[in-house]
């Protein structure tokens, strides 16, 4: 692992100046932004500041935020980007402007329940080793009507998360478990995550801001999952974080399973290498903070991704790699994990495919 010079290990993020910040990123969110801001203003505990980073909206979003800021019971610090950054870089900018000890992330199209901020902050206050807490969410339609489902279940992680008080880093290493709007993060974890490394922005396997943040938070502390839904998560065609419902979900699962077996070698290799780079970047952050055990776990999973790159070693070597991957927790014991193991076994013994086909989603 690269050893950074001492200067880089010194503080790169200023001390907290207030208690609670909300980081909100916007882009053409005029249809929903007022409802979100009203729900933030109606929280049982109010934030000290809302940091808004607008990514060059072309509708009335900025105007609506300015109107809200004029009468908001807390400081609203709006900044509009000169050029479009995309959501991950936009969140990195917003987070770097936050001054709070605790930072909650917000998406422009959700509706927060009045208890949301208090519940998340209470959990962070209760135990200083907790670096991040995230909740479940109720799914709502474009008009705010309940869809009768919860976010965790549509991501196939509900059962797993409800059983666990603490979510370890290897789970975030395997897959994205949640979205930013359900999270509140301790400043120390945000500091460790910034600046976001370039390897997140990989076209074969991009890692979004929320997965990166949760991966780092779990590596430099404890992440807790709160099973109660604390917000309405709006499902609509324009959103960036998609949610799959009913038959879509079954179809996507089938597609993911088939991709594991049929994805072309080039695509699968690029994905594994990208993940390895990203996990090593997270391991480096953990190492810098003195979380050597966690850094070691992430490095082991990253090595496993590298070893999954096809063409490396004999069949026996590849089968041994699969076995070591199971041991270091690189796959997991859920449905997707078992499918991935099966896919890797098939790929390790059959001739290579190199034609274009569906992408494996790792």
């Amino acid at each position: 692992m690269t050893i950074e010079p001492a200067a880089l290990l010194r503080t790169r993020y200023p001390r907290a100046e207030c208690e609670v910040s909300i980081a909100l990123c916007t882009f053409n969110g005029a249809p929903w932004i007022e409802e979100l801001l009203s729900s933030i203003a109606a929280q049982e505990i109010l934030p000290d500041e809302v940091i808004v980073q607008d990514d060059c909206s072309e509708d009335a979003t900025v105007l609506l935020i300015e109107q809200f800021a004029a009468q908001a019971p807390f400081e609203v610090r709006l900044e509009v980007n000169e050029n479009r950054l995309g959501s991950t870089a936009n969140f990195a900018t917003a987070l770097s402007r936050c001054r709070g000890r605790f930072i909650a992330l917000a998406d422009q199209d959700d509706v927060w329940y009045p208890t949301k901020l208090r519940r998340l902050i209470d959990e962070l206050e209760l135990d200083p080793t907790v670096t991040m807490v995230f909740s479940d969410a109720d799914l709502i339609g474009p008009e705010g009507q309940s869809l009768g489902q919860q976010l965790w279940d549509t991501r196939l992680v509900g059962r797993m998360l409800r059983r666990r008080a603490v979510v370890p880093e290897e789970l975030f290493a395997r897959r994205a478990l949640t979205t930013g709007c359900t999270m509140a993060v301790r400043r120390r974890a945000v500091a460790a995550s910034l600046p976001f490394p370039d390897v997140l922005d990989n076209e074969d396997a991009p890692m979004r801001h929320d997965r990166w943040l949760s991966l780092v938070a779990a590596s430099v502390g404890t992440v807790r999952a709160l099973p109660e839904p604390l917000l309405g998560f709006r499902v609509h065609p324009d959103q960036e974080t998609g949610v799959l419902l009913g038959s879509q979900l079954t179809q996507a699962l089938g597609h993911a399973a088939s991709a594991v077996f049929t994805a072309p070698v080039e695509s699968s290799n690029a994905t594994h290498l990208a993940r390895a780079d990203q996990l090593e970047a997270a391991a480096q952050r953990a190492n810098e903070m003195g979380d050597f055990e966690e850094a070691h776990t992430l490095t082991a999973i990253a090595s496993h991704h590298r070893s999954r790159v096809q063409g490396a070693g004999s069949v026996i070597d590849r089968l041994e790699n699969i076995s070591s991957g199971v041991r270091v927790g690189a796959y997991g014991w859920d449905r997707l994990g078992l499918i991935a193991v099966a896919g890797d076994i098939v790929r390790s013994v059959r001739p290579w495919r190199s034609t274009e086909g569906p992408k494996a989603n790792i």
Partner: protein
Amino acid sequence: MLRKMKVMMVTDSLQVGGAEQVAVDIANTLDRDTHQVYFCATRCDGLLRSSLKSDVEVMVLERSATWDLLKLLAFGKYVRTEGIDVLHSHGRGTMRFIALCKALGIIKAEHVFHDHFGRLHLDRSAGRGLTIPLHHGVDAYIGVESRLCRWAIETVGLPKEKVSLVRSGVDLERFSSATAIDLRSEFDLGDCALVLLMVANFRPQKDHPTLFRAIAELTKAQQESIRLVVCGSTTADPAYFEGCMAMLERLEIAHLVRTIGVRNDAPSLMAGADAGVFSSKNESGPLVILEYMASELPFVATETGEIAHAVKNAGVGILTEPRDYLALADGLAALLEMSNKERAEMGGRGRTLVIEEFEQHVVVGQVEAIYEQLLSLSSHNLPTEQSARSSG
């Protein structure tokens, strides 16, 4: 002549550690008029053996696993032969060992479990491996912090009357009689203004990196005025220790730090230091804060555990949020800014508070009361001198 109550402290080992020290302190301070004391280290011997009073019968079992049947039988035979009335276990592995002995009918002595578990923040679960022995093999549960007691009642489901909170205490005698070691000359520290001492084994829980990063945050002038002596096992987790050493190099502060390994003369080291530091992530005690206070050391420590919370507003030390190296750096800077007189006053207040609230006799009184209550409830009805006294 009435028979004394026979009590055996049972730990995994006699190596230096918080839970082991508590067991040794209780063994040394139980009232000798009413108690005969035994000590069993079920796995291995260690440096703390020399701290035990000479009248304590010591047994080292050298078991290799929880379910080491031969050792289990040997232990049971010893307990029966000696007629031990109360087994007082420290540590969850030891508790399971004794609970198994009870379940198999090898021993019938009362079992008091003293829980020091320091990772409740990571693991609040109570699987069958814990609930079964706690329900069926433990007669009284002592938690060293209120969180543990709540866990025992709410998560494990133990009846309230079985659960007691007993905060750790400190045996002042160990500190009153300690001869100060001149740390500057002993460890070649030069002429620095302040020698800081951290007593903690190199294990991830103790979070040395946060302390190292805090020191790196100080100005050059502040750094040059301090030296840090770290006393604790460097072999408990070799990978962690190596990581810490590499970090010191990367932070360019290795010349400010001396690691001296595990020692059995911590009171003498404390007597020779100017201030204590402690950067643990999570603790149930931690006992070392009381030891700093008993040594009249001002300290900067992370606020974790029952004792840290209890002394938070007493002006006996500077407490900061765990894992926050910036806050810890501020604490160190504040300590450096204090005059010698102010630091001495802070240390003095610590010593007074220990005498008033954390002296070992206060703790041991609570423990003896639990033994008494247990035996009076059991079919033993042991005629101890104390019960004879209370009946007139």
